């Protein structure tokens, strides 16, 4: 009876109710949309690397090390020696060590030198391995594997040859003109900084930095040299090492060992810890989004309340009639509450439908623009929780209106 009455009464005032529903739908879309993107950004952020237990670099501060080794931004300050790499990778607790070398770029995208094992052992997100959209990992010295975004924005295909620049930045003056690299593989999109990286072998990078024309000539004329044939190009130094351990238990011991290394000043960081530290530094971003969400909720609930309050003034006679047929004042209170809940329920439905159309559309855009892969499924646990709170807040927020109706009902003289 209560539900039927609330429904009929809403239908009777459909003009103002529809406007209110639209307002609240938009609020819910903003609320859920902003929060979804915030969560997804955080998730995508923390899924940039997984399965790597320690990252080793020079003593530079953990954030800096994380920034250049994982996010490929910032400037690697110093290198660590190849001998340190060899020493560390030989430690018994280590399952695998991947050396990486940064410092060159192409059209603003970073070039990373590494070993072919990188493609097997590096994992992101939920321990996902890198996958090749086309081609294969590098086998020859001047082979190049492109991240998905690099290939897409620069329009490269398998077989293209590319000149790398020395240093970072789009307008680097010094190009390694004499040595063209060949694209042999293109990775599938990951939504992580891997998409924006060009991968080549350490030996290839080393060769690109050769200065003696004779050496260069030797290499470029026998272009089909495989990596094992160029032992002499083993680098003297690298930028960082990613370590995968046999057992997680050894992480802290190993970290201490590396940090207190006698032969070279090294530092080892736990990527997970450093990632959350980095996210902390972006707390302003996080908090701003939170604030937006809260303000949107508050404003829409105030709007709802204003609409209800105005309607109750007009409905005093109706309320008196309800009282006369035996409705208690609490019935009137519940009626107003129920009307508010129905309005929010309808708005929520509209918002969810709208978002399930909007998100897939914005998905590609966001991935291209910001390299963040957002999930197009809006119905998540946190969102349900958010909606649940929204309903509770609605019920609380309309108490003034409902109380006003209740008081009116109690004091009604017919």
């Amino acid at each position: 009876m209560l539900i039927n009455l609330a429904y009929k009464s809403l239908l009777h005032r459909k003009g103002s109710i529809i406007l209110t529903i639209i307002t609240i739908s938009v609020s819910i879309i903003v609320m859920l949309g902003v929060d979804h993107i915030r969560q997804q950004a955080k998730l995508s952020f923390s899924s940039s690397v997984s399965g790597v237990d320690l990252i080793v670099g020079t003593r530079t501060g953990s954030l800096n090390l994380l920034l250049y080794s994982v996010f490929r931004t910032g400037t690697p300050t110093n290198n660590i020696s190849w001998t340190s790499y060899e020493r560390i990778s030989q430690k018994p607790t280590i399952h695998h060590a991947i050396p990486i070398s940064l410092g060159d770029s192409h059209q603003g995208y970073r070039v990373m030198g590494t070993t072919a094992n990188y493609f097997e052992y590096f994992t992101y997100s939920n321990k996902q391995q890198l996958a090749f959209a086309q081609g294969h990992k590098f086998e020859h010295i001047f082979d190049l594997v492109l991240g998905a975004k690099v290939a897409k924005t620069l329009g490269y295909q398998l077989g293209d040859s590319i000149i790398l620049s020395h240093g970072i930045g789009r307008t680097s003056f010094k190009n390694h003109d004499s040595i063209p690299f060949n694209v042999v593989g293109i990775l599938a999109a990951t939504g992580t900084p891997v998409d924006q990286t060009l991968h080549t072998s350490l030996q290839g990078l080393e060769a690109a930095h050769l200065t003696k024309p004779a050496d260069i000539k030797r290499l470029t004329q026998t272009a089909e040299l495989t990596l094992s044939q160029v032992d002499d190009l083993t680098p003297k130094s690298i930028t960082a090492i990613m370590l995968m351990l046999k057992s997680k238990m050894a992480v802290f011991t190993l970290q201490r060992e590396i940090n207190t290394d006698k032969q070279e000043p090294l530092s080892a960081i736990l990527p997970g810890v450093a990632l959350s530290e980095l996210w902390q530094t972006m707390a302003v971003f996080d908090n701003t989004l939170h604030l937006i969400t809260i303000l949107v909720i508050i404003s829409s609930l105030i709007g709802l309340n204003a609409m209800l309050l105005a309607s109750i003034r007009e409905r005093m006679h109706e309320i008196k009639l309800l009282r006369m047929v035996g409705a208690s004042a609490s019935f009137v209170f519940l009626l107003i509450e129920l009307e508010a809940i129905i309005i929010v329920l309808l708005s929520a439905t509209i918002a969810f439908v709208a978002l399930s159309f909007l998100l897939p559309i914005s998905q590609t855009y966001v991935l291209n623009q910001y390299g963040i892969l957002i999930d197009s499924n809006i119905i998540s646990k946190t969102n349900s929780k958010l909606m649940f709170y929204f309903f509770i807040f609605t019920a609380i927020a309309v108490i003034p209106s409902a109380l006003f109706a209740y008081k009116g009902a109690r004091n009604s003289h017919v």
Partner: protein
Amino acid sequence: MTIQLKNIEFSYSNSLQKNVLSVDDWSVASGKKLFIYGPSGCGKSTLLNLVCGIIRPSLGSVTILGEALNKMSSRELDRFRSNNIGYIFQQFNLINYLSAIENITLASQFSLANKTINIDHKITSLLETLKVNSEDWSRPVNTLSIGQQQRIAIARAFINNPKLLIADEPTSSLDEPSRDNFMSLLTTLCEANKTTLLFVSHDTRLKHHFNLVQKFTDINNAAGKH
């Protein structure tokens, strides 16, 4: 006795004001059809509200159907009213966005009286008795004429078999033919249901429909002093 008022004093808002009502001893026997007349503003509606328990007297006791309203909580009053008292006002008796059937059903749902019987049948037979065309039963009542609405109001008032029916100038917005029609339908139903009728109006031409007629100033001592 259906209605019994003793030593009633009532004033709106604060006690500094003059009393609107002052009734020493007034009672109405069961089954009577009582007509009370008096000029506008003398306190007729106030008396009816007191009888319904919508307002409480500053002093004195109101006893309806043997129950002292003073002793009831507002919840008990709500219950009591919906189970025992029907009412019809001058106009706007119905929730305007609901249909005749929905209005009557709503009234029946708040009462205990109809829990067992077939309510839909009762509603349709009442509407038929009151000569409301069946095509108007499901339309929102704000699309119906005042005369039709007042007849539906009678049906609504009778759905819970009230022992007491209160009518506050229900005919004042009706023209003469529909007024007579309304009055005969109302009194016939009251007789058939053995419902006590308390009817107030300033229009003394209605007198002949009743078996008991009182002047409001004879009941209310405060009225004369206005």
